């Protein structure tokens, strides 16, 4: 065999590697406000253009413009900003605690906070969430106590998952937040099943689910899209295109050939592409999709065009596979800075209030963390009862598990 030189073979490669100057001149980003907001029951066949453009509300001068402006009150905007700040400060604290050995693992959502926070605010509390692992903003926006989130991450005596799950694989039934799997994409079609059941029962609660762009390569993604389309499921199918799946750029999921939103077209559902760092646009698009689903219009697929500003997890160093300053070069900015800029622009926020908010949230996170540690960490202090590890395999414990528990002496 001759050395590999086939000119018709393409193995995708990102535009920049470490040491190179990052730039995103190739991106075709329309102006904020440039795209019309269609009727929520529009025929998907008339919506192809939405999959290849990008819905944006906040322009780079911090003004909200165009038909998609959800016209949120200043209170709601501040609430969104606070949830995003809380998410980021919480993430930073937890990552630091992982670095000092208090937990095994962590995943931040830096740069993607607008997606989870705006979507949680746009949905009803009765709507069921089937997230992936980078939507902690959903929990925070729905009011889950940070203490409970930390207790889970520390696998301590108050962890509602009883020490069985990796940190950040949250479960919160009370908040209609599903159990995060850890196997990518498995929740996508499960969300469709939940939504089908809601429609079967004649209820108007809908489901929403999230995967990253890398996960669109899985069969689960295809199953979710197909089943949602076939049964007209009231579900929002979100693809968070943060450009990176660990070290593999979006080209390895087919992103060089077509937008991820355009996947929706082939299934006969609207595919909306939205600026994922634009809180207002994400909110507006989610409201549109939710209203469509509740009105019997069925599923919508949303591609959130964003950028993973941190590593994939605490287990990888992004400087080894992309330029260190690539996050700063991202042309759509930082979601927190953009919403803050907008609030300041409309006279409803200030740098002083922002600094104060950061201080207050940091103090809250510190206080909550201190309390969480008092209930134990993965490596010290209290943990769930060891005997509980044999529970919940089945509703009732069968004899073989009872015997194994006795063998362990617990």
């Amino acid at each position, binding site marked *: 065999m001759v050395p590999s030189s086939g000119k018709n073979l393409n193995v995708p490669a990102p535009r920049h590697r470490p040491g190179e100057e990052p730039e995103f001149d190739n991106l075709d980003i329309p102006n904020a406000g440039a795209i019309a907001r269609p009727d929520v029951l529009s025929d998907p066949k008339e919506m192809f253009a939405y999959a290849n453009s990008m819905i944006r509300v906040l322009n780079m001068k911090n003004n909200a413009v165009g038909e998609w402006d959800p016209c949120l009150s200043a209170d709601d905007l501040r609430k969104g900003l606070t949830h995003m700040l809380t998410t980021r400060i919480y993430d930073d604290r937890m990552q630091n605690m992982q670095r000092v050995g208090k937990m095994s693992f962590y995943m931040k959502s830096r740069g993607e906070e607008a997606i989870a926070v705006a979507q949680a605010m746009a949905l009803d509390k009765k709507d069921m969430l089937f997230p992936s692992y980078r939507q902690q903003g959903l929990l925070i926006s729905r009011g889950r106590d940070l203490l409970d989130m930390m207790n889970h991450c520390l696998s301590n005596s108050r962890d509602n*998952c009883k020490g069985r799950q990796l940190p950040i694989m949250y479960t919160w039934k009370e908040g209609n937040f*599903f*159990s995060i799997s850890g196997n990518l994409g498995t929740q996508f079609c499960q969300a469709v099943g939940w939504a089908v*059941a809601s429609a079967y*029962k004649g209820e108007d609660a809908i489901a929403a689910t999230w995967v990253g762009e890398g996960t669109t390569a899985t069969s689960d993604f295809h199953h*979710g899209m197909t089943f949602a389309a076939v049964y007209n499921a009231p579900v929002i199918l979100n693809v968070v295109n943060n450009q990176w799946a660990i070290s593999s750029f979006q080209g390895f999921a087919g992103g060089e050939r077509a937008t991820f939103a355009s996947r929706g077209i082939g299934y006969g559902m609207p595919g909306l592409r939205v600026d994922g760092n634009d809180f207002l646009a994400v909110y507006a698009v989610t409201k549109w999709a939710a209203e469509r689903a509740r009105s019997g219009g069925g599923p919508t697929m949303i591609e959130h065009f964003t950028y993973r500003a941190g590593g994939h997890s605490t287990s990888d160093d992004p400087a080894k596979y992309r330029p260190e300053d690539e996050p700063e070069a991202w042309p759509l900015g930082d979601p927190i800075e953009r919403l803050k800029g907008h609030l300041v622009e409309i006279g409803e926020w200030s740098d002083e209030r922002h600094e104060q908010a950061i201080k207050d949230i940091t103090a809250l996170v510190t206080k909550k963390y201190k309390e969480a540690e008092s209930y134990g960490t993965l490596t010290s202090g209290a943990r769930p009862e060891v005997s509980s590890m044999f529970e919940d*395999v*089945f509703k009732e414990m069968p004899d073989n598990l009872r015997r194994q528990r006795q063998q362990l002496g617990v």
Partner: protein
Amino acid sequence: MVQAINSAQDVMLERDSSVVVFGEDVGYFGGVFNCTEGLQKKYGIQRVFDTPIAEGGIIALAIGMGVNEMRPVTEIQFSDYIYPAFDQIVSEASRLRYRSGGEYWAPITIRTPCGGGIRGGQTHSQSPEGIFTHVSGVKTIMPSNPYDAKGLLISAIEDDDPTIFFEPKRLYNGPFFGDPKAKAQSWDNHEKGDVPEGHYTIPIGKAETVRRGSDLTIVTYGTMVHVSLAAAELSGYDVEIIDLRTLTPLDIDHIASSVCRTGRCVVVHEATKTGGFGAEILSQIQENCFWKLEAPITRVAGWDIPYPHAFEWEYFPGQGRVLDAIKKVMEG
């Protein structure tokens, strides 16, 4: 047995509006083996419906519906097609209750025809139960007759944990004793072919002794129960036969009490031998009965090869192989 399986679903659809039945071709057509025939007409298109050809999607759909307070009964058309759903069964349905600290669970039933003897070749004949008995969090069931099938299927549907219900397709229309040349029998005159109307259950996790004896115990399930019964008759020995009915959780106490009494044991299944569920049964017997054993335990199983189309009956562990094993254990 087809009617018994149909009846179990009929009973549950009637009793519980959270029960829905779906899978490939199960709706209008009634399933490729007719196990859902007439159910769509009776209960409507929203309760008994066809699905896309995507087993992983079928099980994922069922899990999501189960989380939303429903009780889905799915059909995987052939158990040979269950592998695309493997991740959804193993990583999702089976572990949901555990990983969520008991907050969520998936009360789903997965019906699937298994086993050979119908000229199905290597993609319509497999017995993959041993792949699932290795998984914690899912119950695996395989009935050998219509009466058990109905009672066990109702139990499976009512169970709050995921269950895989393997249906030996060679038994759909009558008992099969391992001789393809013998005249086919129907269930009409079989004592377990008489299936009551209405609701009744057979508990999951309980084996049944279907032939009493004192010389040797055969532990088996599915089609091989009937083959073993026929071989026992031919052997001249006083053979006890246990039909497991449920594979996991395994009723080891029932097995051990028999083997400790007879002192001899043959384990029989149609699935391939190496790493099969028979190995687990054998290990547990050894752990529980070693000092009572009078001969090595023997396994009769399918060869460790794919199920070959033209050599179906050389593959199938028929009466002769069971008989040889009985003699070996009895006579050394």
